[in-house]
C-alpha cells in the first residue's frame, strides 16, 4: 500500500493516491475543473487546455488532467487569470468552429422557438409533443401557424439550395396545432403548485395571453384586463377572419384559461379600471397594451368622409359584427404592410368593385408577406406601385371624391436600407375613389398614464419620445417596481411573434420579482453560429442535399372567396406534413443538450468571433450507416481516436495532417465502414461536442431526452445502460457506469439496436388466428382460451418454453405455471435445447470482470468478443493497451473479427478435441498442478484414468493442430502467469466447456486472482434459465425436482398438494409430435434456427401454439394465439448475468401492452389455481422462498465421453438479438 499524498487545492487539503492527477483528486473532492479532452477511461492527453490550474512554483499554467500530484503541492483552480485562459482557449476553438448550435430558423425567431425540434416531432406524428415544445416559446401555435410573418422561413437555408421557398415551418406548425386542438388529449403543460401570487395583465392580445400562460405555468394567478368586449386584441380586431378564424383564436385562448388564467373584458385601465385597485389586489402588473391607434393618411383633405384608418375599419367590423358594404364601390388602400393587405382583401370580400393598393415604393420593398400579395392579386386587387397620395378631393358635402396621387421613383437608400421614394415632377393624377383606407402605421395609446402615476407609490411610468411605454430593454421593467411592459406598446407596432417574445422576457422578470430575486435579463446561453465566422453561401451548400419541392398550402379557389371563410385550408394529411418536415435540413446541432463546448462557452462567456481569421470547412462524413463525423465541430481532443485505440483496440480513427490543418478521419479518404471500426459507438460517447454523432434514421431534433436506466437486455454481461427517449420515442442508448460497466461502455448491438424499440409494428394486444387472419382479442378471451386448450389435453401433452431474455421473475412464473398449474415438467428453452448439462457450472467458473485489467495472457476460444461481450472485450483491449497483454485467438473459423487484434491466431478443427488433447498431454506429462488438485478437486484419478486410456493421437488429429502445437498451447496456458481462457457458449459445446473447466483445474488456475477461465453465456438471462428451473429435471436454484424436500417446499409455497414427478426430454416429445399445446415465451425458434424448415416442421406438430413476443416473428407466425410481450424496462425485474450476479432493475417506461408479461403469466397462474402476484418484487420474494440454502460446492474433474455440439439456434434464439444483428448486417452491406 502506497502512502497517500497530501495536496492543497484552493486552500483545502486533500489526499490522493500516488500517480493520480490534479483533475482526479479535485473532481473527487467536488472541485469542478472544466475539460474537453479528458476522458476517465483513457490515459491523460492534454490538448484542450481548459483544465489549466496554477501550481505554486511552476511556470505558466498546468493542465490538471495530466499533472500528477506531489506532496505539498499547492493548486489554485480558479482565479481571474485561469478563467481568462479558459475563456481564451474556448474562443480560439470557437474561432475555428464553423458550426451552428441552432439552425437559422431558431436563431431568427424572435421568440427563439425550437423549430428543428418541433419539426422532428411533427415528422414522427407526435403533434401534442410538438405543441408542447412550441409552447415553451410561443403559447399561440395555432394562431401563429396562420398569421406569423415567419422570419424563420425567410432565413431557411433551403433557399441557399436554389429552391424558391424555405421549409414550410408555419404550415407544419399549424397542422400540429390544429391536430392538438382537435385531440381529446391535447397538450397541457406541467403547472407548478399555486404560489398565491397574483398578477394583473393589461390587454388580452398575444403578449398578454402569452404572459398569462407562462405565469400560470409557474403557479401564479394571471388576471387579464381587456378593454374590448372580447379577448385577443389585434388577433381578433386587427386580423380578418378569412386569415384567422375566431373559433381558432377562442380555442387557443381556452388553452390558456384552462390553466386558471382569468380574462376580464370591457375593463380599460385609466377608464373603468384604476391602478389604485390593481396595486392593492395584485402583486405585479404587466402592461401588454398594444399599439392600436390608426394613423391618419396625413395629407390635406384626409378629414373627408369615407377616409378611414385601416385598423379602425377592421376593428369596427369585428366590434359591430357587421361587414362593411362596398358593393359597386372603388376602394383605395394606402400602404404596403400586412394591414394594407388585410384591408384590401377585406374590401374585396365586402363587395368592392375595384380595390387599389397605393404604395410609394415597388413590390420588392413591400413589407407585407409575399403570399398575401400573391393571394390579393388572385382576388383581384390592383396595385399602384411608386405612387403616393398627395391630396384628398372632397365634394361639397365633405365626402371623398377622389385622391390626387403623384408618381414616385426610387432614390438613394434611407436609414432602413430601402431606397427612398422621391416624387416625379409633374406626374400628378387623379384617382376617383369611394373609400380610402389608410394602412400606414399605428400609434400607442397611453391614456392611463396619469392614473398609474397618480397612484404609484414608488417610481413613475414614463413614455418614450415615440409615445411608447418606457421599459428596460433587457428586463422590460418599467419605472415602477413590479410593473413590466411588453409588446407593441413598448416597441411600437411590430409582429405577433415579437410581442410573444417580449411577453416571455416580461414574465421572466415578473417571476423573478415575485420570488424576490433581483430582476436580471434572461441568462444568455452560448450559441455557435456559422454567421459569426462567415455567412453561408449557396456554393457552400451546393451538392450536399437533394432538392425537394415544397408542399404548398391548399387554398380556397379565388372564385370562392367572396366571404370570410378561411382561405388557407391547412395541410390535408399527415403524409403531406411529413413530406414537408423531410425538407428540414437539420442545420442545428444534435448535441446541444450534451455539448461540453457549449456548456463551457456559456459558463465562461466566450465570444465566438473574439478571434477572427481563417477557419476550416469540412464536409460531413456520413458514409458509415451509424456514425457520422463532422470535423467542423471537432476540437481535436482525440478522445474518439484514443478510445478506439485504447479501449476498442480497433484504431479505426486517426489524426490527419498537422497544426491548424489537423483533422480526425479514418485514413486516406476511407469511410469508417471500410476500416476495422466495430460500430460500437464508443467514439460517440467520447466526443465532447457533436463532431462524432450517431447517424440516426429519424429526425434527431434534437429534443430533450429522458433517461430510462436499465440493464443490457441483448447480452449476458448485464451491463448498465441508459435508454434515452422523448415521450416514449427512443433516441439513443448509452452505457452507464455501474458495478458491471465500470467504464460506462456499450456495444454495437445495443448502441444502435435500441432503434428496434421504436418499431411501429409492435404487438400490443392478444391476437387470435381465425381463418388465416389475425384478429385482436381481449386478454380475458386469450387467457381463457389457453386454459381451455391446456386443460383438455393430458398434462404431459403440454410443453412450455421460456426464453433466455425473460427476467428471472418471468422465467420463474413460466415454470410455476407448468409445474404447479399444468402438473408437467415439460418446461425448457430452445436456447439450450439438446445441448446437454455441461454448461451448468459456467456461471460459477468465471474470472470476475474486474480482474481482467490485470491479465497478461488472453486465450480466446471461439467467440466474437466485440459484438457479443463488449465489457469483456473492452477490458481485454485496455489490458492489451496498458500492459501489453497477449491475445491468443483460437478458432475453427477461417476468419474472425478478432484476427487482426490477436497477437497470434490458431486455427483448429474442433475445440472439444483440442481441450481434451491438452488435458491429456498435461496429465500424461505430469504437468498438472497436483497440489491444487489435491486440495480442491474430486475425481482426479477417475478422470485421469479415463482420459489417459483414450487415444491421444486421435484427439490431436481431431483438434486440427499438430501434436507439437497442441502441446505448445497447453504449456503456454499452463506456464503463463495471469492467463485466462475466455470462451463463449455460442461456439463451445457443453462437453468442451466441461473440458475447459477441467483444464483450468488441472493447471491450478481456477479460483485464483486474474487467471483461470471466463466462460460466457449467450443471452442476457441465460443464467436465469438454470437458476429459475427452466429445465425438465431441475427446479429453481438448480434443485432436483425429485428432491422431496424441495417438492414439499414448492407445494407449500404455491399452495398446492401435488407436483409432477416424471420428466421427459422435451426435444423428443416435440420431434415425435407428442405435444398438443406448445407455449413459447420470448423465443423465436423458427426465426433463429440454422435449419429453419426442420424446426418449423417440428413446431408445427403441435396442435395449438401460443407465442409471446414483441413483434411478428417467424415463430409468431406459426402461432394460433399471440400474446404481446412487455420489454423488461417496462416491467422491471431482475437478470442474472453470466457471472451469476443477479441484478434487479426498475420499470422505467410505461408498459405498452395493457397487461405486462409478468402480469399475463400471473393471470394464467391464477387461472390454474396458483395465487401469484404480478409485481416483480413480490414474485422475487416468492422465488427466494424456494431457493436452496447456501452450500459449498465441491469442485470436480468431470469426464466427458463425446462432443455434443448440437446448437440449433443462432442469436440465443432471441428475436430481438436476431433483428438487431440483421439490421446491422444489411446496413453495412
Amino acid at each position, binding site marked *: 500500500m502506497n502512502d497517500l499524498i497530501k495536496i492543497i487545492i484552493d486552500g483545502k487539503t486533500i489526499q490522493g493516491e500516488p500517480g493520480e492527477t490534479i483533475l482526479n483528486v479535485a473532481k473527487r473532492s467536488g472541485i469542478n475543473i472544466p475539460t474537453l479532452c479528458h476522458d476517465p477511461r483513457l490515459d491523460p492527453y492534454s*490538448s484542450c487546455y481548459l483544465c489549466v490550474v496554477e501550481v505554486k512554483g511552476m511556470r*505558466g499554467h498546468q493542465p490538471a488532467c495530466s499533472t500528477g500530484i506531489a506532496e505539498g503541492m499547492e493548486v489554485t483552480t480558479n482565479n481571474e487569470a485561469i478563467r481568462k485562459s479558459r475563456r481564451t482557449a474556448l474562443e*480560439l476553438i470557437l474561432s475555428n468552429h464553423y458550426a451552428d448550435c441552432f439552425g437559422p430558423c431558431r436563431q431568427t425567431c424572435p421568440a427563439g422557438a425550437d423549430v428543428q425540434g418541433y419539426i422532428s416531432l411533427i415528422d414522427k406524428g407526435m403533434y401534442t409533443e410538438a405543441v408542447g415544445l412550441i409552447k415553451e416559446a410561443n403559447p399561440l401555435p395555432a394562431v401563429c401557424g396562420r398569421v406569423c410573418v415567419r422570419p424563420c422561413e425567410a432565413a431557411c437555408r433551403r433557399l441557399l439550395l436554389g429552391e424558391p421557398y424555405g421549409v414550410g415551418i408555419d404550415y407544419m406548425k399549424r397542422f400540429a396545432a390544429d391536430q392538438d386542438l382537435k385531440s381529446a388529449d391535447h397538450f397541457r403543460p406541467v403547472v407548478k403548485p399555486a404560489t398565491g401570487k397574483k398578477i394583473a395583465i393589461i390587454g388580452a392580445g398575444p403578449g398578454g395571453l402569452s404572459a398569462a400562460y407562462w405565469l400560470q405555468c409557474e403557479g401564479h394567478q394571471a388576471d387579464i384586463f381587456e378593454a374590448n368586449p372580447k379577448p385577443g386584441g389585434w388577433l381578433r380586431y386587427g386580423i380578418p377572419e378569412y386569415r384567422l378564424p375566431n373559433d381558432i383564436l377562442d380555442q387557443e385562448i381556452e388553452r390558456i384559461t384552462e390553466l386558471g388564467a382569468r380574462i376580464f373584458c370591457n375593463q380599460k385601465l385609466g377608464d373603468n379600471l384604476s391602478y389604485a385597485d390593481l396595486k392593492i389586489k395584485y402583486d405585479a402588473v404587466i402592461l401588454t397594451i398594444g399599439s392600436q391607434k390608426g394613423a391618419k393618411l396625413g395629407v390635406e383633405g384626409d378629414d373627408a368622409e369615407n377616409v378611414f384608418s385601416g385598423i379602425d375599419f377592421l376593428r369596427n367590423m369585428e366590434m359591430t359584427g357587421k361587414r362593411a358594404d362596398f358593393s359597386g364601390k372603388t376602394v383605395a388602400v394606402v400602404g404596403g404592410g400586412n394591414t394594407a393587405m388585410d384591408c384590401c382583401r377585406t374590401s374585396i370580400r365586402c363587395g368592392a368593385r375595384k380595390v387599389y393598393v397605393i404604395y410609394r415604393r415597388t413590390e420588392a420593398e413591400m413589407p407585407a408577406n409575399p403570399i398575401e400579395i400573391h393571394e390579393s392579386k388572385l382576388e383581384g386587387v390592383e396595385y399602384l406601385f411608386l405612387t403616393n397620395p398627395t391630396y384628398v378631393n372632397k365634394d361639397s358635402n365633405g365626402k371623398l371624391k377622389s385622391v390626387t396621387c403623384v408618381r414616385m421613383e426610387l432614390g438613394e437608400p434611407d436609414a432602413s436600407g430601402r431606397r427612398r421614394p422621391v416624387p416625379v415632377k409633374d406626374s400628378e393624377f387623379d384617382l376617383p375613389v369611394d373609400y380610402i383606407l389608410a394602412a400606414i402605421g399605428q400609434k400607442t395609446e397611453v391614456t392611463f398614464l396619469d392614473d398609474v402615476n397618480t397612484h404609484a407609490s414608488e417610481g413613475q411610468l414614463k413614455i418614450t419620445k415615440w409615445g411608447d411605454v418606457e421599459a428596460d430593454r433587457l428586463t422590460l421593467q418599467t419605472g415602477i417596481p413590479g410593473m413590466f411592459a411588453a409588446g407593441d406598446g413598448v416597441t411600437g407596432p411590430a409582429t405577433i411573434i415579437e410581442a410573444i417574445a417580449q411577453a416571455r422576457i416580461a414574465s421572466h422578470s415578473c417571476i423573478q420579482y415575485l420570488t424576490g430575486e433581483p430582476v436580471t435579463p434572461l441568462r444568455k446561453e452560448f450559441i455557435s453560429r456559422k454567421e459569426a465566422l462567415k455567412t453561408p453561401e449557396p456554393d457552400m451548400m451546393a451538392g450536399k442535399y437533394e432538392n425537394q419541392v415544397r408542399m404548398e398550402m391548399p387554398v380556397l379557389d379565388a372564385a370562392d372567396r367572396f366571404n370570410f371563410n378561411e382561405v388557407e385550408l391547412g395541410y390535408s394529411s399527415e403524409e403531406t406534413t411529413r413530406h414537408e418536415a423531410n425538407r428540414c435540413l437539420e442545420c442545428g446541432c444534435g448535441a446541444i443538450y450534451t455539448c461540453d463546448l457549449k456548456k463551457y462557452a456559456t459558463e465562461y462567456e466566450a465570444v465566438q468571433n473574439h478571434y*477572427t*481569421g481563417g477557419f476550416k470547412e469540412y464536409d460531413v462524413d456520413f458514409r458509415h450507416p451509424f456514425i457520422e463525423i463532422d470535423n467542423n465541430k471537432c476540437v481535436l481532443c482525440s478522445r474518439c481516436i484514443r478510445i478506439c485505440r485504447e479501449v476498442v483496440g480497433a484504431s479505426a480513427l486517426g489524426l490527419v495532417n498537422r497544426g*491548424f490543418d489537423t483533422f480526425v478521419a479514418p485514413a486516406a479518404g476511407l469511410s469508417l465502414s471500410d476500416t476495422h471500426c466495430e460500430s460500437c459507438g464508443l467514439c460517440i460517447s467520447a466526443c465532447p461536442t457533436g463532431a462524432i454523432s450517431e447517424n440516426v434514421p429519424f429526425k434527431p431534433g434534437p429534443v430533450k431526452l429522458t433517461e430510462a436506466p436499465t440493464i443490457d437486455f441483448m447480452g449476458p454481461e448485464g451491463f448498465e445502460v441508459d435508454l434515452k427517449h422523448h415521450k416514449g420515442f427512443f433516441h439513443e442508448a448509452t452505457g452507464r457506469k455501474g458495478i458491471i460497466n465500470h467504464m460506462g461502455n456499450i456495444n454495437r448491438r445495443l448502441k444502435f439496436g435500441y432503434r428496434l424499440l421504436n418499431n411501429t409494428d409492435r404487438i400490443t394486444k392478444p391476437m387470435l388466428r381465425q381463418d388465416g387472419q389475425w384478429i385482436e382479442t381481449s386478454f380475458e378471451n386469450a387467457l381463457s382460451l389457453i386454459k381451455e386448450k391446456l386443460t383438455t389435453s393430458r398434462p404431459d401433452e403440454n410443453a412450455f418454453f421460456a426464453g433466455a431474455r425473460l427476467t428471472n421473475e418471468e422465467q420463474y412464473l413460466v415454470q410455476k405455471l407448468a409445474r404447479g398449474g399444468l402438473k408437467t415438467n415439460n418446461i425448457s428453452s430452445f436456447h439450450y435445447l439438446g445441448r446437454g448439462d455441461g454448461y451448468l457450472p459456467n456461471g460459477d467458473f468465471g474470472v470476475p470482470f474486474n480482474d481482467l485489467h490485470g491479465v497478461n495472457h488472453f486465450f480466446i476460444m471461439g467467440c466474437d468478443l466485440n459484438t457479443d461481450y463488449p465489457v469483456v472485450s473492452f477490458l481485454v483491449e485496455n489490458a492489451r493497451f496498458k500492459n501489453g497483454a497477449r491475445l491468443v485467438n483460437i478458432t475453427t473459423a477461417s476468419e474472425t473479427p478478432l484476427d487482426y487484434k490477436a497477437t497470434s491466431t490458431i486455427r483448429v478443427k474442433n475445440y472439444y478435441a483440442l481441450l481434451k488433447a491438452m488435458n491429456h498431454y498435461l496429465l500424461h506429462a505430469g504437468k498438472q498442478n497436483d497440489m491444487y488438485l489435491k486440495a480442491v478437486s474430486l475425481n482426479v484419478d477417475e478422470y485421469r484414468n479415463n482420459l489417459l486410456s483414450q487415444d491421444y493421437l486421435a484427439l490431436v488429429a481431431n483438434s486440427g493442430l499438430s501434436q507439437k502445437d497442441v502441446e505448445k498451447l497447453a504449456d503456454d496456458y499452463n506456464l503463463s502467469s495471469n492467463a485466462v481462457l475466455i470462451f463463449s457458449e455460442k461456439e463451445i459445446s457443453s462437453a468442451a466447456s466441461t473440458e475447459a473447466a477441467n483444464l483450468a483445474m488441472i493447471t491450478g488456475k481456477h479460483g485464483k486472482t486474474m487467471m483461470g477461465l471466463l466462460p460466457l453465456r449467450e443471452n442476457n438471462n441465460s443464467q436465469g434459465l438454470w437458476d429459475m428451473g427452466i429445465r425438465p429435471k431441475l427446479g429453481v436454484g438448480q434443485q432436483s425436482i425429485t428432491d422431496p424436500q424441495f417438492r414439499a417446499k414448492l407445494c407449500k409455497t404455491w399452495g398446492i398438494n401435488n407436483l409432477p414427478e416424471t420428466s421427459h426430454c422435451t426435444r423428443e416429445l416435440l420431434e415425435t409430435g407428442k405435444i398438443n399445446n406448445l407455449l413459447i415465451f420470448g423465443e423465436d425458434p423458427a426465426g433463429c434456427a440454422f435449419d429453419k424448415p426442420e424446426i418449423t416442421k417440428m413446431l408445427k406438430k403441435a396442435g395449438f401454439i401460443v407465442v409471446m413476443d414483441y413483434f411478428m416473428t417467424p415463430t409468431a407466425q406459426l402461432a394460433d394465439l399471440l400474446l404481446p410481450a412487455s420489454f423488461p424496462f417496462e416491467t422491471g425485474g431482475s437478470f442474472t448475468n453470466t457471472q451469476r450476479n443477479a441484478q434487479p432493475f426498475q420499470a422505467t417506461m410505461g408498459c405498452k401492452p395493457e397487461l405486462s408479461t409478468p402480469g399475463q403469466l400471473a393471470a394464467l397462474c391464477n387461472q390454474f389455481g396458483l395465487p401469484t402476484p404480478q409485481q416483480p418484487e413480490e414474485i422475487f420474494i416468492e422465488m427466494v422462498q424456494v431457493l436452496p440454502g447456501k452450500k459449498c460446492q465441491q469442485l470436480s474433474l468431470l469426464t466427458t465421453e463425446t462432443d455434443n455440439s448440437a446448437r440449433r439456434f443462432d442469436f440465443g434464439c432471441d428475436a430481438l438479438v436476431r433483428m438487431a444483428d440483421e439490421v446491422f448486417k444489411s446496413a453495412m452491406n
Partner: protein
Amino acid sequence: MQNTKIIVGLGSCGIAAGAGKTYQKIETLIAEGNLDVKLGKTSCVGMCYREPLVEIHDASGVYLYGDIDESRVPEIIEKHILEQKPVKEYLVKTDLFPTPDDSFLKDQVKITLRNCGMIDPEQIEEYEAHGGYQAVKKIAAEKLTSADIIKTVLESGIRGRGGGGFPTGLKWKFAAGYSSPEKYIICNADEGDPGAFMDRSVLEGDPHTVLEGMIIGGYAIGASDGVIYCRAEYPLAIKRLNIALNQAREKGYLGTDACGIKDFNFDIHIKEGAGAFVCGEETALIASVEGRRGMPRKRPPFPAQSGLWNKPTNINNVETFAGIPWIILNGAEAFANFGTEKSKGTKVFALAGKVKRSGLVEVPMGMTIRDVIFNLGGGIKDDKKFKAVQMGGPSGGCIPEYLADTVVDYDSVTATGAIMGSGGMVVMDETTCMVDVAKFFLDFTCKESCGKCTFCRIGTKRMLEILERITNGEGKPSDLDELIDLAQQIKDNTLCGLGQTAPNPVLTTLRYFRDEYEAHINQHKCPAKVCKNLLTYTVNESKCTGCTVCARNCPVNAIDGERKKAHTIRQDACIKCGLCFTKCKFDAIEMS
C-alpha cells in the same frame, strides 16, 4: 612538390558553393599533369563565406585559399604547385603574412569543432590520429566508473547545447538512476532551427566525435542502445555517420564489450527524421523514433524515467556529445576554465544574415555579441547599419543593436528575451523589417505546430493573422495589445517548448521595435521598406534614361516604355518584387 597535399573542403556548404567541381578539377589536373600531389578532403572549417576552400600543405607551410571555384583551379595549380608561388590574392590564411580573415579565427576556441575542417571525416584513422577515441580508451584503461564520468561532466559545467541549457551531467545522473535492462541514449540531430547549421557541420566534419560522446554517455547511464535521430534533409551527414558507424564497429568501439570495456554491449543506430521541427522536443522525438506522429506529451514522467519504448532514456544534442570526449580527455577543469560563472566552455554559433563573414564560429562563453558580429563576422554587409541579431531561432528573439554588448551565456541572452538556443545568429540591418521577421518566425512555428494544444494550434495562427494584417497595412492600434495578450497566454498554456516559446520573436520585436509596428499600423509604412503591400514603386522620369533594364527584368512585364524614353510602372500589375529597384543603375526607381 613532394609531400604536397591539397585538401578540399567538402561540407554541404562547400559543395553548394561548387567545391565538388573544384575537387574534380584538381583531380583531373593532377592526373593530366601526372603530379606528385596527394589530394584529400575535409569538411567545413567554418569559413563558409569563402567557400570553396582549398588548403595546400607543402614543405613551406600551410596555405588556405578561399573562393576557389572550378575556374580558378588551373591558376592555383599552375602558380602554387608548379611554380611554387602562392597566389596571394586568394589566400585566406597563411603563415607568410597576416590576412584580413585572420580575425575570423583568432578569437575562436575550438573544442566542439576541433577536428572540423582538419580531418577527413570518412577516415577513422584521421580521427584517431587527432586524439580520437582516446577518451574511451582512457575510460577502459583507467576503469573509470559511470559515477566518475558523470562527476567529470557535472564538474565541467557543460549545459545542453540544443537550446534548453539543462546541465548535461545532471541529466545523465537522472538517467543513470533508473535501472532497466533496456535503456537508451539518443542523439538529437534533428537540427530544425532555420538559420542554424552547426550540428550538420559537426556531423559532416567530425562524425566520430559524436559517436564517441554517445559511447561515453551510453556507458555513463548504462544504456543498451544508442539512436541518432537525424533529419533526412542532411543526406551527407547520414552518409558519413553510416561510414563512421561501420568503422567504429569494425574497430570494436561499438558492439559487444565495446571499447574493450567488459560487459559494455552497446551499439548505435540511425533513425532518419521525416521533417517536423517539433521533433526537437524530447517527447515528440521519442514518439517519432517509435514511428508515431511527433506529438509531445506532458512531462513528468521525464524520458529519464520513461522514454523510448517506455524505458529510461537520455537525450542530448550533437554539439553536447561532440564536446564530451574533449572533456573526458582534458578534464572538467580545462573545460570550465572557459566561459562564465554559470555557462562554461565554448559555444558554436552559426553566423548568417547581413554579416560580412557568415559561417561557423566557436567562441568561449562570455564574448559579447558585438565581438562575435564585428570581430569575427567582420561587421555588416555593405556597411549598412546594424539593427539587431536574431538568436535562438523560432523560440528565440531579436536582440537590438543597443544590447549588442550582452555577453553570450545562457542567462544573459535569456535576460534580453531571446534565448541561446542551438546557436543560430542571424544578423539584421536597417533593411530588415522587424515586423516581417516576427511574421516569418510565427509563420514557421504555425506550420510546425503539431496541432495538439489549442493555444499553439489556433493561437499562433491568430497571431500570425494579426501580423499579416499589420504588414498588409490593415493593422489596428489595438492589435498590439491583442498580440501581447495572446502571446502571454500561449506561453502559459501549452505543453511543449515549441508552443511555450513560439511568441518570443513577436514579444522581443515588440519590446525593442514597437515603433516599427506602430509605423505599419498608424502610418501604413514599412520603415525598412520590406512589406510589399505598403510599398509602391515608381519611376523618377528625370532620372530614367530609358535603358530598359527594369522592363527586361520585370518578372510580370509591368514596366512599359520605349528605349531612351522614361518608363512607367503599371501599379495594377506590379507585384512589388523590387527587382527593378535593385536593377536600376540610375536610382530612377523610387520606393515609397
